[in-house]
């Protein structure tokens, strides 16, 4: 996992999975939190977590294909822990290695005054539930501002997809989807 947030430092990220009723995790953590990372000294200035996570899902129905929701937090100028971005992406369908770059965003304050006070108090607007970013319902009432990117790398293994009639690749398939977000080596 790698992240590009131009002006922030010392960020950590939380992840969780959103999936439909027909999905169930069989192994791995559904939710987690990463270590804090600091900016690289190299020229890229990107923040690298290299945080591996491993989860396996099983399902009977492609509906509600799992999505990973990533929210990034970090201290602001006063040292308050504030949210730096929310983002979500579907787990890739096809087996193999995938790289996904998620644009991150944060909800905007409703007014300038609130923006100021939230900055002052270190209590920025947050989603009641980070999982809302993985769904469409209710999103129309929010206004967001984009803020950086998070790069995720997936290594996907599927099993028995073809048995259920879902052909995601031309090759062989597997009843569980296995996701492994593997680390990406730090590149300067």
């Amino acid at each position, binding site marked *: 996992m790698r992240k590009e947030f131009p002006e922030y430092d010392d960020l950590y990220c939380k992840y*969780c999975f959103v999936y439909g*009723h*027909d*999905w*169930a995790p069989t192994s791995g953590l559904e*939710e987690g939190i990463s270590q804090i990372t600091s900016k690289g000294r190299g020229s890229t200035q990107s923040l690298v977590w290299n945080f591996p996570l491993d989860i396996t899902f099983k*399902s*009977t*129905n492609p*509906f509600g294909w799992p999505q990973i929701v990533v929210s990034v937090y970090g201290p602001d100028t006063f040292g308050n822990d504030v949210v730096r971005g929310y983002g979500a992406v579907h787990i890739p369908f096809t087996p193999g290695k995938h790289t996904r770059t998620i644009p991150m965003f944060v*909800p905007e*304050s*409703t*007014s300038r*005054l*609130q923006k100021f*006070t*939230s900055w002052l*108090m270190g*209590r920025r*607007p*947050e*989603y*009641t*539930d980070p*999982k*809302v970013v993985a769904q469409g*319902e*209710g*999103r*129309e*009432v*929010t206004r967001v501002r984009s803020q950086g990117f998070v790069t995720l790398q997936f290594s996907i293994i599927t099993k028995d997809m073809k048995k*259920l009639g879902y052909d995601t690749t031309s090759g062989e398939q597997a009843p569980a989807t296995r996701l492994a977000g593997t680390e990406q080596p730090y590149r300067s």
Partner: protein
Amino acid sequence: MSTPSDLRDKLRKKRRALQESLGKVKDDTQALVPSDSDVTKENERTAVEKLTGRGDDPGETLRRSLKAQRMKKKKKLLEEMSMEGPPEEEMVNEEITAVQELQHDQEEHSVETLAEEGRSVRLQRDLPPLPVARADSSLSESSMRQRMREKLRVARSKAASLLQQEASLEQPSHLRGPRDRETLTRFDRETDLDVHEEESSFAARVKFRDAARKATRDKRTETGLPTEEEAYKFFTFNFDPEPQESRRKDRAKKKTRSTDDEENEGEEDEEEEEEETGRARAREGEDESRERDEDAPLVRDEEEDLFIIDQSAKDFLELKKADYIGYNRRVLREREIFFTPSTRPVPASCKLPENVQPRYLEDEGLYVGERPPVALSNQNILENRILKEDGGKKWFGDDGRILALPDPIKESSSRPPLYHLEEELDPALQTVYRKPLKSKYVNRYIAGVGDTQGDYQLDVDVSGLIFSHHPLFSKEHVLGARLAQLYDQYLSRQHKNLTCLLTDKLNGLRNTIRNMLELHSGEGISHVTQQRIAEYKQEVRHTRQLRDTEQEKDRTLLKSIIKVWKELKSLREDKGCTNTPYKLYIRREEIQRALDEQEQEAEILAEVAELQAESEEDYERKLNEYKRKHEEWKSWKKKQKTLKKKQKQRRQQSQDVDEEEEEDEHSEEELGEEPVKPEAPEKPDIAGLEQQVREKAAKIRRKPGEPVLVPELTASNPITPNEACPRGEISRREDVSKRSLFVKVLYNDKEVSRTDSRSLNMDFRVHFGQIFNLKIVNWPESIKLQIYEGVSSSSSLIAEVCVPVPESSVLTGSTPSEELEFSSNQRVTFNHEGVGSDVPVSFTNDGSNIQTLLTSGKLSCCVSWAVGEDDIPLAPPSTQHGAGMHSGLRQMDAIACIGASGLNDMKRLGKWAAESRLDPNDPNNASIMQLLSVASGGEVVAPDYFRLEQLQEEFNFLSDEELERSRRFRLIRLRSQEEPEFRNFKTIPATEREISEKVFEEYDRRLKEGEVIDTKEHIDAHRALVAKYLQKVRESVINRFLISKHHYILSDLVVEEEVPSIGGPGQGVLGLNLFKLAEPKRPLKPRRKERKKVTAQNLSDGDIKLLVNIIRGYDIPIRKPHTSKPAAGSKGARSYTETFTAASTSQTALQASEWPLGQPVIRPFVEVSFQRTLLQTSTAEGPNPCWNEELVLPFSAPNGDYSTSSLQAVRDEVFISIFDEVLHDVVEDERERGSSVHTRIERHWLGSIKIPFSTIYMQSRIDGTFKLGTPSVLLGYSKERSLGSEGGYDAIRSLSEGTFLTLFITIEPQLVPGDSIREKMKDVKFDTQEVERLLLACEIFEKDAGQRYPDRPCVTTVVDINGKTVFITRFIRPLPPPQELLDAFPNNSQEATELVVRYVSLIPFLPDSVSFAGICDLWSTCDQFLTLLAGDEEEHAVLLCNYFLSMGKKAWLIIGTAIPEGPTAYVLTQEQNRYLIWNPSTGQYYGQHDTFCPLQTVGCLVNADNVWFNIQLYATPIRMSFDVTKPKFWKPFFSRSFPDPGLSSVQPEDLVYRRTDKAYAAELQDRIEKILREKIMEWRPRHPTRWNRYCTSTLRQFLPKLEMSGGREVAEEHRLELQSLLGDYRISGFPLHLPFSEIRPIIEAVYSTGVHNVEAPNVEFALAVYVHPYPSNVLSVWVYIASLVRTR
């Protein structure tokens, strides 16, 4: 646009050429067409103009037209050449051919003129005209065109006369009008003589032209022959040769351009062109003058320059001050140099030549196009600038405006035309045509491919190719190839032998005719026979002609074979070597000369005879025709004569010639056209006929006796070996041997394979003999063979041959190979003997007989479907093939799906189908035939609708019904609909078979039986109805709720800090908060920290725990020794006032005396049950125990769904019960007492409290002291008060009676309570009948209240059961309680009041926050409430309030919060300066200052008139004032600024009560008892349950008394009574009192007491049920349950 000089050159050239040609043919022409002159006279100039083009781009047009002519001529010549062999002349010079063409045309024309002789002659007659009169007369003509022409003519004649005048007045060179200035042009100057003549005869010509024009116009109407005078005048006119010549030229040009020679059209065109020409000429003139001007100053400059040359070097250096020129001077100087065009318009006179009036074409009726818009100022600047230039005037037109095209965009492209036939076209300019490409992705796979059986194979057999021409052919080869070709032709003709066939046929026909004639031999040939003979004759003629042509062809073929052979031979001799093996033998077949001659003669004679007969017939017919016509003509003549006579008579009478003419015209008009005088047909020339036949025979047939020549071509001639050849030939042969060829096979435009490369042989045959097997997957669309020729390593494409895709019946082995011709137009030239390709080659030594040959040849190949090993053709089935193609296309065609396809060209298609005679039975044509049948069966009806997604059906993988039937999809759909059964259905099975029908059983039953509610469960039919009704209401509300649930507001999604309001009482000042941050920490004064709230989403089972903190209990009843004697008598009627003050003091005192010191009076413990979890505290001692214990109960949400809405719908309750732990010594043997303890623990239920989870969830914590629900009688227990110990505290406590428990309940972690849906519902907006203004006021009022006191509920509008918003005061209206309740205590209002309260509390309680999933309060009116017999606090409160009002009390509705209900409604009454707070659902009442009053906050008060909101500092009833008149404390809704609009009540005027059926109550009573008995036995499965009948009957008698006393303690006497009866038993038991709604709650209540748990071996039970009916089916149920243990 070409330059004028260009144009001039061209014109000059042309002219010269024409003159030359005319010089030759002039005499001839004049002789031939003397009469033509009048017509063409006026064209003299215009024709030239025509050449220069119509538009303003004469150069281009001219060039184009010339080129076009040239091309045409060339083509013609080529044709002639090819037709007639060697052409007469070689086309060297274009001009010459033009002349030839001209000659030809003139000849033609002369013939034409001859034919039109009569007309032309007549035209001459009118030559001396009277223009004015003519004009007048012609005005009467109505034709539009005529009128137009008239106008033009008038205008022109005016101009002409003007010019004439000018000419006569001044020098001709100056005075030429714009249109006559062409005399200045150069080519006119060359023919100076003509010009002079022209000028001299100018005036005359003008006249003449007019006359001529008139003549042409009137030629149709004029009749008669020209008079002598006219003829004379015509011929004596001085016609200078020049105009005539040009006229010729026009004529010629016109002919070449269009065969259609319509006079009128031509004339008009010419007139227009004439004017344009005039302009063009004018420009030319100007051009010239400018040239002259330019010359003059040049010379001057040169002269000046001459002086500068001789200067010494010194002179070049000079030191000087820098020049400074003063501003004014500079301006002056600059003025000399600079020119600033003014923006003022230029006067018209400046723009036109002097003394010329501007001419406006538009006014003359000519079309002038609209010019592109230009800003006037810009135009003026431009005009000024142009005028400043030399010769600027030429830019202006006749109308004084700048010449401009109407539309500057040319219609034709201005690119130079690409008609360079001779030169190679620049490759960059070559147009490249590409085939439309099909999408690559449209793969039409053959169905079944991929399966085992479905491999298809195409065999492409490329056997070889033969060149019919190759660039490396020597001349001999060419001739040889031609010879071979001719021979082939000959052979094929020979094979067909058409001549013979036709000859036979002819003979046969002749015989038949002869026979027929003989048969009838002249006697009465029937009409039918005659006709048949005629038909036969016709047939004979036709056959003869056919035979003749065939014979001729045969002969010419033979001739040409011989000719070519001769040429070949001569060529071989010439070159001295032989390259081709061809050798022609000609065999002579001798024929018997006499016989042959005889036959031929007979043949000729027969033919002659036939021809004679035919011609005679023809003559007869013609003669008849002539006679008829002659008759007609004669009769016409007669008429004419009579008319003439009449005219003569008239002429004598009148003197005016004009008139006479007019008359003449008139009469002519009457008579009409003169019929042509018929000519008598010639007699057929019999001798001539025979001559003709003989000539023909000589031409096309063998001479009689001549031997039949049979050519025979062999390839036996030896080829000269290389050494003996000349050098050119050797190099050619070498070149040939270098060449190699191969063929590429392309399948569907993809190269699939190629043949081996084979070298080219001397005979230009290449043998490949390779077969390619193509295994195919795609449908064959095209199979192509590309022939490549290679020299050494490089190769180039010669030609491409498309091979048709074979039918599926075409199989390998059975198909002969086809020969496919190919050719290439590549140009190849060699410097050796090879003739090359696309290069003209001459075959004779003198260089004539030029031919251009292109590379061509034949490729023999064969494409067929392969045959598999077991003789199965590997071809796709043809039907499938066709269908596949068609269906594929149909699917492609989106329009076809709409049904509009094929509409566009249906007719043409039909026509084509009819012409090509499609086989209707051919399956390949099926779709076309069907289409046609539709088309012919009537118009194809285009649907008059438009479908947007016409392809939708294509994507449906299932029919809708099937989809409906699928269990899996149904499950998915129901889940998505959020049906309660499936709302959180997890992991829907992946396959259909894994889903059992059982899944839907429940849902289906609900759907089906939603209407029918099980009466067994409800016992009472009425209750069933109510339940049904409630269900419906619930559904409708839930639907509403679902809508609002999916309606989000920002706060649902985003957590955001509120802006701290400055100065607001709730939040405090921002600054103050900041100040607080700086406050020093005070560790000894800890502040409560807010727990972090957890959103309910990421929770799972086990995460949530319910914390129940049992702190302490008060006033728990204590055990009574059995032996104690009955104490004081029964309590009499007490007033409620008493109970508050010192109700039980006496009792306390009494019982205290009985208190055995040191003995534990009670050992209570608390048991908490929630969701099947049971937990209990440790056992404490004494009536006021202190546990201070925390019980942790796990919580799991239904279906594991921890969403807010789901949690709100949790209906579980927390039961908290107090039990007494009783230890019984069960040691039987007294001896063991010292050594062992053997006790049995019994637990006795003392009371319980239940708190719904929803309340805990909504309030997040419950903290307080609650009154336990205790039975009114507890057998074996009594209320004991400990005195003294607690002192002052007791005083307060004693105010109320009952047992109390202090509790703290919360949920860990703290859940964010679901927003009360009220807020959301606000957005959804219910229907309402209230006026907008009121609603607005409500909104403001509530908002204001909510802002100031967020914790105080404020309700102004409520939702009634129909879902409509109703203002709350409408619910308050005095309503009378049932009369029998009032009658019960007629003289005691207090008793009556209590009864009424009891009645209200007996109506079952149904919290709608639970039933409606915490959505909203639905308020039903009192009658609805009584009908439904279910409702929550609000309904109870409203009913109670209304009863109180009708009973004359001052009553209000309190909207507030209470424990444990949460937001609720109480009733406030004012009694004698005191305020009483009534809990309507329990029937309890509290004084304002009662500490144990569950009401915690008071939000607002409501009565029928107004709503008051509490704005006091405190909201607890104890600390506030209920005086609503004080505006300081209460804020009224209706005030002076917004008065009460007088809202009518929604309540009925009166309530109708039904008397309850006593019998029904008794029946119910029995039933409940029976069920309970069964249940208790069921609950004790391991022990026998014995029923003490005596006790039961006693209890049964006692229950009505309890009812009568209103549940008050009548226990003492009752207990005593029991004691006396059952002295031997230890009794523990109690009566339960419940309002009746259903049986289930009763059972649960009994179960929760745990009476059945007594496990003593000798226990007996007693159960009594009593149901007391109240009006309107309100039932009070008493259940007395007791356990009896024998003590002895």
